[in-house]
């Protein structure tokens, strides 16, 4: 099978499914409305302005919190990973903390932080800092001691050492962590919106469900899917451009 026919064959399945659903589906169905109804409902939501606002709110939360988590995680990971004694001591504690599922932190964080605009970003960042921190910690630990010695031998300034040795070595870890953190951020952001009724797609989803608006629920699901694709795509692009600039560092 050549590339073209592969592409067509894989496209065929979802298209066929949507086609059959669209043709045979009952528009009034409370649980399985045909795809056309999703688009109609999406148009309604767009007209009312709800959909865009919700998308923007969720995206803002996801991107900002991933940024915060990225920065905090990098700093913490690099600090903890810099000395073997430190990282070894900290290891079991981190293992335990890592086993707490990020979504379950949300109610606890809601209690401690209270409702407010800061809530979303803080909670999501809190939940998603782990992948970045652990990856950066690992990357920092694996910097070959010879490289560090080289930095000293060449009498490089601290800034130069950071820029020329640490950053290239740690960067793949940062990006790998972000790749995991970003989809996690979407999940936790949606959860926060649902539990704390914060503006965003999560809240719209719950509203649609309470109104028994099945087409709306599907339309929003589609939106979530598209956001996921966009966010993942963005981070994949980031990973690829980093790989291009640092070919040897990226495994």
């Amino acid at each position, binding site marked *: 099978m050549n590339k073209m026919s592969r592409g067509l064959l*894989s496209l065929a399945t979802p298209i066929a499914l949507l086609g059959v659903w669209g043709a045979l589906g009952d528009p009034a169905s409370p649980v399985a409305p045909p795809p056309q109804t999703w688009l109609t409902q999406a148009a309604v939501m767009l007209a009312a302005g709800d959909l865009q606002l919700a998308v923007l709110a969720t995206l803002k939360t996801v991107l900002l919190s991933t940024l915060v988590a990225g920065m905090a995680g990098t700093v913490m990971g690099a600090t903890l990973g810099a000395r073997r004694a430190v990282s070894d*001591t900290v290891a079991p504690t981190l293992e335990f903390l890592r086993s707490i599922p990020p979504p379950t932190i949300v109610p606890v964080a809601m209690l401690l932080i209270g409702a407010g605009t800061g809530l979303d970003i803080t909670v999501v960042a809190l939940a998603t800092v782990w992948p970045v921190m652990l990856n950066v910690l690992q990357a920092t630990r694996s910097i070959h001691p010879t490289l560090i010695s080289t930095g000293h031998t060449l009498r490089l300034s601290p800034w130069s050492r950071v820029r020329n040795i640490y950053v290239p070595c740690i960067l793949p870890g940062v990006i790998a962590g972000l790749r995991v953190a970003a989809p996690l951020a979407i*999940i936790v952001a949606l959860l926060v919106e649902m539990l704390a009724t914060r503006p965003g797609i999560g809240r719209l989803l*719950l509203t649609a469900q309470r109104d028994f608006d099945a087409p709306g629920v599907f339309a929003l699901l589609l939106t979530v899917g598209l956001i*996921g694709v966009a966010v993942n795509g963005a981070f994949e692009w980031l990973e690829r451009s980093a790989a291009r600039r640092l070919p040897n560092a990226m495994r």
Partner: protein
Amino acid sequence: MTPRLPQTRQWLLPAALLVAWQLAATAQEGPSILPSPVEIGQTLLETLVSGRLPADALHTFAAAIASWVICLLIGIPLGMALGSAERLRVALSLFIELLRPLPAVALIPLAILVFGFSWQTEITVTVFASVWPLILASRSGIERLHPRILEVVSTLHLRRWHALRCVITPAAFRQILVGAKLSFSLCLVVSVVAEMVGNPAGLGWGLVSAQEAMRASETFAYLFAIGILGVCANCALDFAVKHLFPGLAQGN
């Protein structure tokens, strides 16, 4: 990653953190939002003794296991079929790539529409979210089969079902097991999340209702219980695997 440091130094850190936490909590003025570790411990004990925590934990665990079994029954055959039939794999590849990334959280409202706030919602969402690692691992297990294995099957003139049962599945088993373990962890997490939003039962619901009622130490207690359940369940699974399949070590 076995540290050559004395074990004590590793336990010192969490102990120190707990002490610091206790001091910070007791030093609060006015209504405390941060419960102290002692308070949390007390609440934990109360809920354990009253039977509420064990009941909730049992519910979550049962839901996770039930979902996992369903994942095994769907995911392994499907994954193996994908690995053996090129056409099927290509036909479903885009479909799978579109469905797989959908977050479980986003699916809960849809499940509520279909099943209401019930265990069916919890299990459906959990299965949907956790079946993918099994499908992919089973597929990979078949794809990674050494071609020699398949040639042995044909030169010994083994019948299809016999080959599948006695050669192919055991050969792919190691890979399938990796997927099964991953799927199990996911089942536990997603069950809790589904309970937080879609099914008023179990540890997830206990967590959220404690938070809504502003019972801080109970919230923390439930969080702790969830973490412990996860660790214990995964350890139990590892233990079971090691003892049920000692032959896995014979593999390589």
